[in-house]
């Protein structure tokens, strides 16, 4: 497809004509999950354009504050993806992450945010297909839940 | 010696079944032979203990279930305590004997089987074993009438043989246990019927093979 065709394309897809699409913020660790996402790309695996990846060095770097801020700003879903337990590039980071996010789910529940909007997945650098699959599943799941209005702070 | 047809002769799932029944993983065995080396009876066996285990691994069901070795095993557990792979061979032997009996395989050693049958008859009847009665019953079963007569007399004289069987009050419980266990096993045997028929056929073939 060349850029020349772009105009009709645009006409075809008018913003108002398209249905509501969830917005998912994904924190991906640089060594495994971000690489997995890249692999999904190089293997041309398709998944919905609902996800925006924030690159972090390690899932252990993701502060629950980031997750909550995302929901406050109206993200419909948040995904934290890191190396499989035991494979952490920094040896122990993802263990701390795992423990933290178990608690974070509780906190979200307490805040009245459906914990089902918050996913934690282990995706290795060789698991492009898994990354694509997770995004497909998550998009479907979040679409089913509908938009996140609860935590959105009034602008 | 019969050629081993790995595709035809080997019953899939047999190793797994024996592993389940014996509570030990037969696939762990790497055939070092320490079990056979330590076995007090291996010299009289048609297959060495490690060969029995090999047959189980391969799934040579009919051959192993009609082997004499499984009946000559005296359950001394030496193999089990010394096995470097922690295979509980004594329990495998128990499992094979019970499978052999339940699938109606041709017993590898008539005398031992006859002894076990007589033994159990008396336990079923009286709740306890009556050695004298059991021995006589065994002699009738096995046809080994004259053996040990002298010994029997000597023991009789020394009051080592209780003339009458003990008949405990709870003997009906014991008989009940026998019945219910048989029922349970019978059920399993039912499930296995087709296999048994097939097994019989195989054994017939196997014997012909051996006869040739």
């Amino acid at each position, binding site marked *: *497809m*060349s*850029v020349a065709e*772009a105009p009709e*394309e*645009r006409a075809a*897809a008018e*913003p108002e004509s*398209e249905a509501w699409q969830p*917005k998912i*913020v994904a924190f991906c660790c640089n060594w495994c999950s*971000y690489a997995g996402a*890249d*692999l*999904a*790309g*190089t293997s*041309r695996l*398709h*998944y919905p*354009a609902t996800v*925006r*990846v*924030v690159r*972090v*060095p*390690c899932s*252990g*770097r*993701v*502060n629950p*504050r*980031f997750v909550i*801020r*995302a929901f406050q*700003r109206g*993200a419909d879903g948040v995904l934290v993806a890191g190396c499989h337990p035991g494979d952490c*590039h920094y*040896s*122990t980071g993802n263990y*701390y992450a795992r423990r*933290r996010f178990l608690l974070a789910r509780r906190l979200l529940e307490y805040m009245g945010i459906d914990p089902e909007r918050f996913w934690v997945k282990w995706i290795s650098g060789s698991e492009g297909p898994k990354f*694509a699959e997770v995004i497909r599943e998550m998009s479907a799941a979040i679409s089913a839940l509908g938009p996140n209005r609860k935590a959105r702070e009034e602008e | 010696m019969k050629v081993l047809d790995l595709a035809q002769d080997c019953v899939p799932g047999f190793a797994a079944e024996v592993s389940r029944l014996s509570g030990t993983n037969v696939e762990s065995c*790497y055939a*070092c*032979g*320490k*079990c*056979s*080396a*330590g*076995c007090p009876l*291996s010299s009289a066996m048609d297959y*060495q203990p490690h*060969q029995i285990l090999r047959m189980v691994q391969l799934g040579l069901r009919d051959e192993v279930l009609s082997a004499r070795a499984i009946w000559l095993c005296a359950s001394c557990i*030496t193999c089990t305590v*010394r096995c*470097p*792979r*922690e295979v509980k061979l004594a329990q495998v032997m128990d499992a094979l004997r019970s499978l052999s009996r339940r699938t109606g395989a041709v017993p590898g050693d008539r005398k031992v089987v006859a002894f076990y049958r007589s033994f159990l008859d008396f336990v079923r009847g009286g709740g306890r074993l009556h050695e004298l009665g059991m021995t006589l019953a065994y002699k009738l079963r096995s046809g080994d009438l004259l053996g040990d007569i002298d010994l029997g007399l000597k023991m009789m004289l020394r009051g080592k043989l209780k003339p009458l069987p003990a008949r405990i009050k709870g003997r009906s419980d014991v008989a009940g246990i026998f019945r219910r266990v048989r029922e349970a096993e019978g059920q399993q045997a039912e499930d296995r019927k087709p296999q048994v028929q097939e097994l019989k056929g195989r054994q017939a073939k196997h014997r012909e093979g051996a006869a040739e």
Partner: protein
Amino acid sequence: MPRVGVFICWCGSNIAGTVDIARVVEAVAEMPQVVHVEDNKYTCSEPGQASIRKAVSDHRLDRVVVAACSPRMHENTFRKTIAAAGLNPYLLEVANLREQCSWVHEDKEAATVKAIDLVRMAVAKVCRHVPLFTSQSPVTKRAVVIGGGIAGIQAALDIADAGHEVVLVERTPSLGGHMAQLDKTFPTLDCSACILTPKMVEVAQHPKITIYAYSEVEKVDGYVGNFTVTIRRKARSVDETRCTGCGVCMTRCPSNVPNEFDVGLGKRKAIYVPFPQAVPNKATIDREHCIYYQRGRCRICERVCEAKAIVFDQPDELIEVQAGAIVAATGYAQFDHSVYGEYGYGQYPDVITGLEFERLVCASGPTEGKIKRPSDGRIPETVVFIKCVGSRDENKGVSYCSRTCCMYTAKHAILTREKIPGSRVYIFYMDVRTAGKGYEEFYRRATEEYGARYVRGRVSRIYPKGGRLVVVGEDTILGRKAVVEADMVVLAAAMVPQPDAGAIARTLGVSYDQDGFLTEAHPKLRPVETNTAGVFLAGACQGPKDIPDTVAQASAAASKAAALLCREALETEAMIASVDESRCSGCLWCEAVCPYKAITAKTITERVRGKNVSRTVAEVNKSLCHGCGACTVACRDGAMNLLGFTNQQILAEVEAVCL
């Protein structure tokens, strides 16, 4: 107000095919901080990079966003580009429009919208970038090699020959290790001492090598390039500088002690040199067995020593050595077969181990190389060898194969047949594993030329009968029990880790496997490195090995260490944790979660209301920090931040997405 330039790459049609570049350019131009935006067919191409450099100067850009392929592809390329344009290389952010957008979406509209978001995120983040700098940490050009066996000797020589100083630490009074105890070596049958002794002498004479024998490493501080190793020099009770190794003291010492060098088969004195070719050739007093130390009387050695070298009140000495690299060559121990009741619980004198047999056949051993039964000194006619004793036995031993036993047992068989005419040799085995140059041929010689009888099966039991040993085994090939009455039984006992391998690992800060062997960083690609930078492994401390493999690995470890020591300084990461001391409360939760021990407590003094107050804060060691960021999340005060991935930057990205 930052001046951001955004460069959007078509990547041919790879991006432009799915993403409407024109619209992205349009949208980006709207973003407040963006003062310049352009699109190129291939931004990574030289023209593409040139136009970045040009734009930086033309538009006085102080931040750059490249929207192209994954940062994992070209982040470094573009860092260099902007550095060439005079910007700090870390003032760059890459938006991943290819792998994570154009290649994974078909719907052009959605892809374009997403692309704009991704660039907005990058812009938001890059505005919060600050210049980052790597720092240099100097390298101490000295290596400490722990263990004076063949592995340590080889590693020390190679590193020293590369021109670096080496400190070689050996626990026993002499270098040599297990190899010094061996008689002949397979597969060439050349005498072990003959090939080892010259190397020991070479070490002793090497101007760049310092030997600390009868010494142990007690503590290791610091990090790659800058270790501080604390060594305990145990008191020999002999002044090394005076002792000439003449040996008179040993001839006169009245107390006899089982000689550990002869695996207890021979005797030595309480003052001793372990073996004639010992390096250093200095006497040592074994205080547990010295009559003077035990009963306060004797001191004969002191009287007879012309060099006046005896120092009864000599204390242990602690010394600190600065080093850039450490090589662990701590070796192995032999499996204790006394767990085998079926083989006599180690109680039958004529059931011995392979190492004991080495001493028996060795010309310099307790029997002058005559193979004699320990029990009665008789020459055995029938010798049985049992392989895999302890090896490949989950029940009573270890699960792994010890790799060396097949070969040394074949060697023992050959030596027995050579030394005892008419002797009969039986070898009970499960497999014969001879993977090595000339190994299989060597094993064939044992059977074909020397008539060693191999019997395939494990031995179930050994029991004494009329002064001989009944060995009850199985020939699994025949499927028949195989019994033999032997005069001597030699057990090929497994190679196991040193009993204190765990302690060694903890001292060095390296990990060890379930068996207790020190673990390499990667089983295939980093076989001699450990997860602790600057610590390398050589020889059997990493797993069972024969001499050729040990020497090869020792040289490999040495070259790794030398390569490290060749560098003037090590560059540290730029994207590492940093503490805002004004906010840090010194709780040190960060210290607990740091996988690299990079965080330590430090005391600072500051003036509060005219008074000097000192308090504890966390300090990050730039050389140790790998930038994982675990500490930033653990921090209760928000004092800990990760440069390049600050909380503010990540939150800015989040907000940019959710606009």
